[in-house]
């Protein structure tokens, strides 16, 4: 064995432990699900039949599937909103403001707190008749404050608020790090050229932190797509199906109804959506991300 081959072998040996895990728990199950989405396989049921594209034709006639698509879209809107907010919070906290460190910690806290615990606190805040939010709204003269999580029309937006708040801390930390990297001489040059504060932000700072924005957008969208715990804790997808997002619908079908074939079909559709969105961003980034 020559030196080169030996080197390669050593390399493979090093990644072997990780690869075993990936193959066992990801590659094989993924291929398995690719197969069972064409069957009527139900967990615990001994019968398994090839049904061709039946799961997909059922999927495209399933009103709850469309509703969860819509819910997913509303849910994803939280990501850009949170990123925009985080950008301005980071800008503010990057300057010499009072209690800077304490504020930074406060914004970051949600991210390191248990998601489920935080969700329960939000449920108390959103409680329609006695919650703090609605009591405050009533005390400032709003007679009929929204029902938040308790009505099908508002529940998805209430979930969005929780999610924006939850993502804010992480997004802010990434932006703070990026803002430290903005070269002082560029800001100085802008000042000498007479640029206003706003102009500096738009034309100098934002383009310089665009790689961070891109990172946050891509990771935020992907992680939001597969969010499950927070919504399960708060509403279990209800009332009605108003907060069932695709990842929850997969869970429901797989682990509540044991419809593994159908659930696999939905999860591959979810994969396709994530893949397409990521591709679009990857292509689109050339226009606005500056490295």
């Amino acid at each position, binding site marked *: 064995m020559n030196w080169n081959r030996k080197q390669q072998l050593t390399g493979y040996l090093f990644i072997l432990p990780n690869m075993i895990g*990936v193959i066992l*728990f*990801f590659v*094989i*199950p*993924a291929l*398995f*699900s690719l197969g*069972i989405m064409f069957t009527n*396989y*139900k*967990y*615990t*049921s*001994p*019968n398994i039949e090839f049904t061709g594209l039946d799961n997909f034709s*059922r999927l495209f006639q399933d009103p709850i599937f469309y509703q969860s698509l819509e819910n997913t879209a509303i849910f994803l809107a939280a990501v850009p909103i949170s990123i925009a907010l985080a950008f301005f919070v980071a800008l503010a906290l990057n300057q010499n403001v009072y209690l800077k460190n304490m504020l930074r910690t406060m914004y970051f806290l949600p991210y390191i707190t248990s998601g489920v615990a935080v969700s329960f606190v939000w*449920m*108390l805040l*959103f*409680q*329609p*008749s006695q919650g703090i939010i609605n009591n405050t709204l009533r005390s400032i003269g709003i007679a009929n404050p929204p*029902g*938040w*999580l*308790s*009505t*099908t*029309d508002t529940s998805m937006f209430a979930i969005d608020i929780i999610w924006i708040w939850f993502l804010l801390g992480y997004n802010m930390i990434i932006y703070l790090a990026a803002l430290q990297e903005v070269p002082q001489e560029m800001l100085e040059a802008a000042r000498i050229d007479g640029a206003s504060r706003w102009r500096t932000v738009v034309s100098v700072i934002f383009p310089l932190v665009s790689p961070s924005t891109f990172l946050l957008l*891509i*990771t935020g969208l*992907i*992680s939001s*797509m*597969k969010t499950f715990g927070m919504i399960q804790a708060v*509403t279990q997808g*209800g*009332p*009605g*199906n*108003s907060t069932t997002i695709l*990842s929850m619908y*997969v*869970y*429901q079908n*797989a*682990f*509540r*109804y*044991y419809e*593994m074939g159908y*659930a*696999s079909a939905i*999860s591959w559709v*979810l*994969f396709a959506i*994530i*893949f397409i969105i*990521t591709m679009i961003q990857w292509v689109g980034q050339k226009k606005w991300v500056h490295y």
Partner: protein
Amino acid sequence: MTNKRKWGTAALSVLLATSLAACGGGNEATNGASPSPGSGNSGGDSKPVTLTMWGGVPAEAGPQAVVDAWNAENPDVQVKYERFVNDDAGNLKLDTALATNQNIDLYVTYNLPVLVKRVEAGNALDLNTYGDYNIDEKMGEDAKAWKVKDSYYGMPTKKNVSFVWLNKNALDEAGLPVPPLDWNMGDLQKYAKALTKEKRFGYVMDMSAYNSIFDGTNAGSGYTKTDGSSNLDDPNVKKAYETLYNMQHTDKSMPTLGEQLTSKMPTDAAFLKGEAAMLGAGEFVFRSANNLKDFPHDFQIAFAMIPKVSADQSNFKYPGGLGDVISINPKSENKDKAWEFLKWYADGGMKPLAAGGRIPASKDADIGAALDTLLGSNKEGYDVKSLEEVVFGKFPTYTVPLSQQVVDARREEYEKYFTQSQSIEDTLKNTVKRHNDFVKNSK
């Protein structure tokens, strides 16, 4: 690219269980499901065997006392109790353990569609192969609802009773008598309205009791019409929906469903704290009601039936029947020993569970003793007459035969109705459509 890895984590959870199931399938084929008398470990002096039983009740709420009592009497057959949480994740855990042969000898199933799945998967022993215990005779007529493929694959052991808990002091104050056994929803609405006052709802209803009223109607009139299409829009179901809607939104005599859901309202605590004068629930509330330390209350509790929908409704059935269905795993190495334990359990061994409201179903169990355990040291706290009539009364009951998908579809649709985002007509129309679609798809 990172997106593939990210996706992997998402897919992982879905796929993990399925791959395990595949392994389990292999075992099934090699293990015959039919018990033979010699298969049990029947050697008299051999070393003690250990049986493992999985159940949904926390060990400290009775099961541990049950197995301790058995273990003390039977040194050669020791039983170990393991608790699983009776929700989706917990049942999935149990099904996975059964499929992968994790040495479970006995386990408890809590609803019929789940039992059917377990029978189909070959994870439940046909108990009719043992000839020495007549389940029909011991457990009575109600046991039949638990038959799968015309046989018992699990032994129903406890009486399910759903009823309305009444704050007798509040009733007296309002000058209302304990309602008659055949009261209806119109009466309930009047009672609730009369009992509502500042900081007190007239009526709260446990989420499980929501279904009882609708199921009681459909169990009587049929879940499907004669042509096989859904009957979930029965006129009495509609009336029940509308009455509850009016109680929530017009009378404001009960919390709105949306509010109850989002605050995850502990209904038993609300009733015992006096924040609600009536509570639609079941025997499981005894666990809290007997616990005067955590739920102090000084009023007497009386009982009423779950109201039927309209006064002239003759075929309303009452939620109840039997529950806690215990099955033996066909792959168990000690099936005969497990069977001995199961018979002992059903005929009175389960008595310690009565403190949490689990009343034995077997006619050979000592009901008086169970009643004493049930009421504990709090006898004066209950109105004995209505307790005997309602909790220990005999009524036409049912066990819900609907699949989980249909139960969920119905709940999702009525949630939209009670949260005022869908009209009653659309609610019933969508419920029926989803029921019919499900029947069509599962063929």
